[in-house]
């Protein structure tokens, strides 16, 4: 092959890829595989999850590799079509997706299913980055209305699935990207106020009874103590809406400094933890490797998000910078929310931990997003124009 050929050039970019970020990603995926394996135990309900997750990770890395090769300007070009496809996919769920556990979140295909909401996060990040790459867009509150709408459309479509947890991630993503795009702080505060108003409205109009119940129970649980835990009212709650977060608290609390050892956590092993390979994976981490293990796993996530933010800081081109900010906020916020749910710092809601929890769509979407960020970091484009590639 001739030096300087197009293929060689494409491969040259690999040399600039942030190796630490790849390592952190791989480590997070590996951790996920270990704890998914631990959560599976010999429970037939979880059978095959570890190997399937390994397959998803492998696919994610494979797709990621190929996404590194073309210049990310192609991603910019595809941002709006991808966003549109995601929105369409979300809007089609009520009509085309089968109902599973009372929700319509997945398109079922032979042998696998796709959860569009996970890809919608990437779609929103790309769309917002494409929109906000123009400096002028974010400077006024009016300029934020379109970004808000861009985030709100898929978020609302996800809320009605219902999947409140996934929808919650869009808020921080929007705000972080707007903020990084140069939106004034007061505009951000206005967005927060608007969001709070929406939340109040959602309480009345959108939230289901069980979602309200989770919030009420979460508020109640701060008043629980040894004296009233045995009361019938609390026991009823602990057997009902408070069961999952309470069992998660028990699992994490009992973990101590170093935990029970991988595969040895009794809450995990004896099936007290529900959805432990997905929404409560971090509780398994806490129970089995203790506080030190939790800090390590959280450290991986922080390293990942921080690495993405470092790329963002290093990238002078606005689209790429904003994509990295958006993906970092997505991964960081979702991870923190997942941990907070496991520790019942926030009301219980189903949210997987990026790269660690079992879930093909989540894993693939996250790995693709990271690959795009790695691509951005590997390019180190000069600023050609104030508004990036435009």
């Amino acid at each position, binding site marked *: 092959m001739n030096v300087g050929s197009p293929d060689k050039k494409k491969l040259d970019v690999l040399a600039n890829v942030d190796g630490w970020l790849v390592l952190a990603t791989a480590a997070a995926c590996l951790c996920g595989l270990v704890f998914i394996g631990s959560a599976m135990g010999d429970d037939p309900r979880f059978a095959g999850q570890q190997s399937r997750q390994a397959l998803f990770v492998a696919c994610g890395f494979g797709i990621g590799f190929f996404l590194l090769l073309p210049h990310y300007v192609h991603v910019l070009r595809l941002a709006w079509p991808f966003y549109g496809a995601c929105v369409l996919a979300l809007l089609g769920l009520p009509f085309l997706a*089968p*109902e599973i556990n009372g929700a319509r979140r997945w398109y079922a295909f032979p042998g696998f299913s796709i959860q569009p909401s996970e890809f919608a996060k990437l779609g929103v990040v790309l769309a917002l980055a494409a929109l906000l790459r123009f400096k002028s867009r974010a400077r006024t509150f009016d300029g934020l209305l379109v970004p808000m709408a861009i985030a709100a459309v898929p978020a609302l479509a996800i809320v009605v699935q219902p999947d409140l947890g996934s929808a919650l991630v869009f808020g921080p993503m929007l705000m*972080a990207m707007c*903020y*990084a*795009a*140069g939106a*004034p702080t007061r505009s951000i505060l206005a967005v927060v106020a608007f969001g709070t108003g929406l939340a109040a409205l959602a309480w009345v109009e959108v939230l*289901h*009874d*069980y979602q309200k119940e989770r919030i009420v129970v979460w508020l109640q649980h701060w008043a629980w103590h*040894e004296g009233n835990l045995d009361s*019938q009212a609390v026991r009823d709650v602990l057997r009902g809406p408070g069961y999952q977060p309470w*069992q998660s*608290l*028990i*699992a*994490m*609390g*009992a*973990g*101590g*400094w170093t935990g029970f050892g991988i595969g040895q956590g*009794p*809450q995990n*092993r*004896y*099936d*007290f933890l529900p959805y432990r390979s997905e929404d409560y994976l971090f509780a398994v981490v*806490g129970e089995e490797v*203790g*506080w030190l293990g*939790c*800090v390590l796993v*959280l450290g991986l*996530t*922080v390293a990942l*998000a*921080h690495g993405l*933010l470092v790329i*963002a*800081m290093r990238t002078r081109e*606005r689209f790429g*910078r904003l994509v990295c*900010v958006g993906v*970092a*906020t997505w991964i*960081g916020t979702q991870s*923190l929310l997942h*941990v*907070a749910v496991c*520790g019942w*710092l926030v009301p219980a809601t189903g949210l997987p931990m990026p790269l660690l929890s079992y879930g093909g769509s989540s894993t693939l979407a996250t790995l693709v997003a990271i690959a795009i960020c790695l691509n951005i970091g590997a390019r180190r484009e000069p600023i050609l124009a104030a508004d990036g590639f435009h």
Partner: protein
Amino acid sequence: MSSTRDRIGVLSVGLGLGVLLLCGHLWLLMVQQQPVWSARSHENRWAFRAVPSQRGSLLDRHGRPLAVDEPTTELAVHYVVFRRRHPIGAAVHGATLLARLRAGDQAAEYRYVDGPRGPEMALQDLYALPLRFLARGALPKQVASELASAITTVLASCSGRSRSRVFAAIRQAALARDERTIADLAEPTVAEVFPKFRERWAALRQLDAQLTVLPSAGARGGEEADARGLFATLEFLRRASLDETRVTWQQDGEEKVGNKLEEIARTFAEDVPFDLAAELRVAADHFQGIRVAPAVRRVRSVAVSPLRVLLGDVVALDRAMPSAEWLAQQLERELPPDWLTDLADTDEAGMAIDRDQVAAEARQTYARQLLQHERRGTTGLEAAFDDELTGRLGLRLVEQDSRRREQRQWNHLRVQAGADVRITLDLDLQLAAERATATAHERQRDAHTANRDADKVEAALAVIDAQSGDVLAYAGSPVVSGGARDLPGVVWVLNGALGSVVKPFVLVEQLQCENTGRPHRSISTFEPCNDAFRYAGRVLRCSHAHWNDGIDPVTALAESCNLFYYQCASGLLDDGLARALRRFGLAPPAGSGDPFAACWQPTVRGLPVAAPRRDTKFTDLPQRAVGYGVEASPLHVARAYAVFATGWLPTLGFRPEARPRVLFDDVVSETAVVQQGLRACVQQGTARRLPLLAELGVAGKTGTAEVGADDQNNAWFAGYLPHAAQGGVQLCFCAVVYWVKDRVHGGEAAGQLVVDFLSALKADPQLHRRYLVPEGGR
């Protein structure tokens, strides 16, 4: 304005702060509060499992079982499962929910009965429900969810389709929000579901019918005490489910509220035959919510009979409702303190366990399980020997998973079976005695013309070993209470006026007074019997004039001449008569210095019998010498007659063990005279018409006490065999038939009872050899 880099730095710091906040929270939760959460983790998965003990058996003197534990099965309804998973329960529950949604019909109910408001109508009403009501938002979420679940259960169970498939079909159809009803569903069709539904309903009715005829079927007391059978229990629980009734109890003066009744499995049939239980087990998928559970039942060698009454009853502790003190004693006895201390020692995570908490929990669990699983004897021998018969409840400290499946055992308190208790009764002898008393009772009852008199007839027979005082048989008729909740009848417990069977005791006293010079009137001064004795202006009579036979002690005893004893009484006075009775344990000791204190029969565990007593208020002195005003049970009389058989007054007992006895060496010559009189009584005296007695060499005495206004009598016969048989056992017996007709005397009624009894012994080669042949024929 800050640069983009600064802003990204702010975001980075925000992320870092978030992580720090979380790490801090996790540190508090996982490090600071670790012991608390660790304890909760233990509470979550550690459980105490009770292992019910086997109760000891009651055995007769030859080791044959009288009452033994036998494994059995019981049935319980777990209503919350029944109404969610059984099509009948789901239809009734769902239709009731639906009906109550209608305005003005809030009290509507469907029941587990045939006809209107029954399950079939419930299903019809569910079928009429428009599907749009099940769409999101049409009904309150919980109601819609329960309705959808109920309909899914009915359709899935009665069509063989999976729940998820049926549920998906319902939800899909509901989305159309049109006027179609459940009956319009493409699948499963009404034609498919209804026949199966009827089959399931018929199966429940058949089960109810089968259970209702079982003697043990029924509820467990309390407000539903009259409920029997499956449907009565279902109805009770259905109402409790609608009212959300919870279990309540008192603890430390406070009313505690527990789980909903529908969440607790409720036993409604015990001792379910194996065939039926096995059928239900195999067809468990068709009887969702109905549990077949292993249990233990007490099996007796006899049904309703005096022996059954003697054996007594065993009931579950929670029904016996023991006092708090008793429960505390049991816990003290059965839960060794060191076991509680060591309980957590084997725990690999023992550091985190609060041992006191585990021990306290173990105690609570033990008390609860004790009440739930253990049984207690409430009457009869079961109650008397309860401490020995009761085993120790086992307790295992185990690790369990979320579905309560046991994964690991940490520690255990070994279950101990109760000890077998061998009693002195001989089952064969007892059955023979029961047959004889039943026959005597029937015979004398039928002899009465008035029902009022017939109802008062009772017969009893006590058979003891004269040598040891072992109670060999103890029968009465009628059996007042088969359930043995109440004390057995008068025959068993209370005393009767003795009549002439008391005369031997008076004669011993008279003869001894003649020898020792204590106040008496010498027999040499007695006047011949002319059938009339004047005392305090009254004329006391004899059965007939015995003339000179009435002044010979042996003949007077054999002929039961009242005049002889009237004259004895005039010399012995009340002191002498009382002494005569105290000597034989037929009157309580007269203070601590009484030389006959040792003769008084102490209370015997398991022996339901009243102590003898004297009543001097309503009888004249001479009458007391012929048994009036002297009341005792046949058991005490038999014991007193043992003196004439052996020269010893034994102590009665139900356990084959050595017991103290009193040697009558100061009245050897006097008892010899009595023995002659008792033999003469059988050979040529008042019992001469019962030739079997003479044939067997029985020595005995008849007695007749007039107790009724129309001269109804208590008829007595007490006596003994002249020799010890196999194992040194010498039969001594006393029979009584209360309230026999006028002119029926001791010999005819009670003597015949003894003859019937001895005839049965004679006819049975084994019993013959065991009791009638000297030394068993060796």
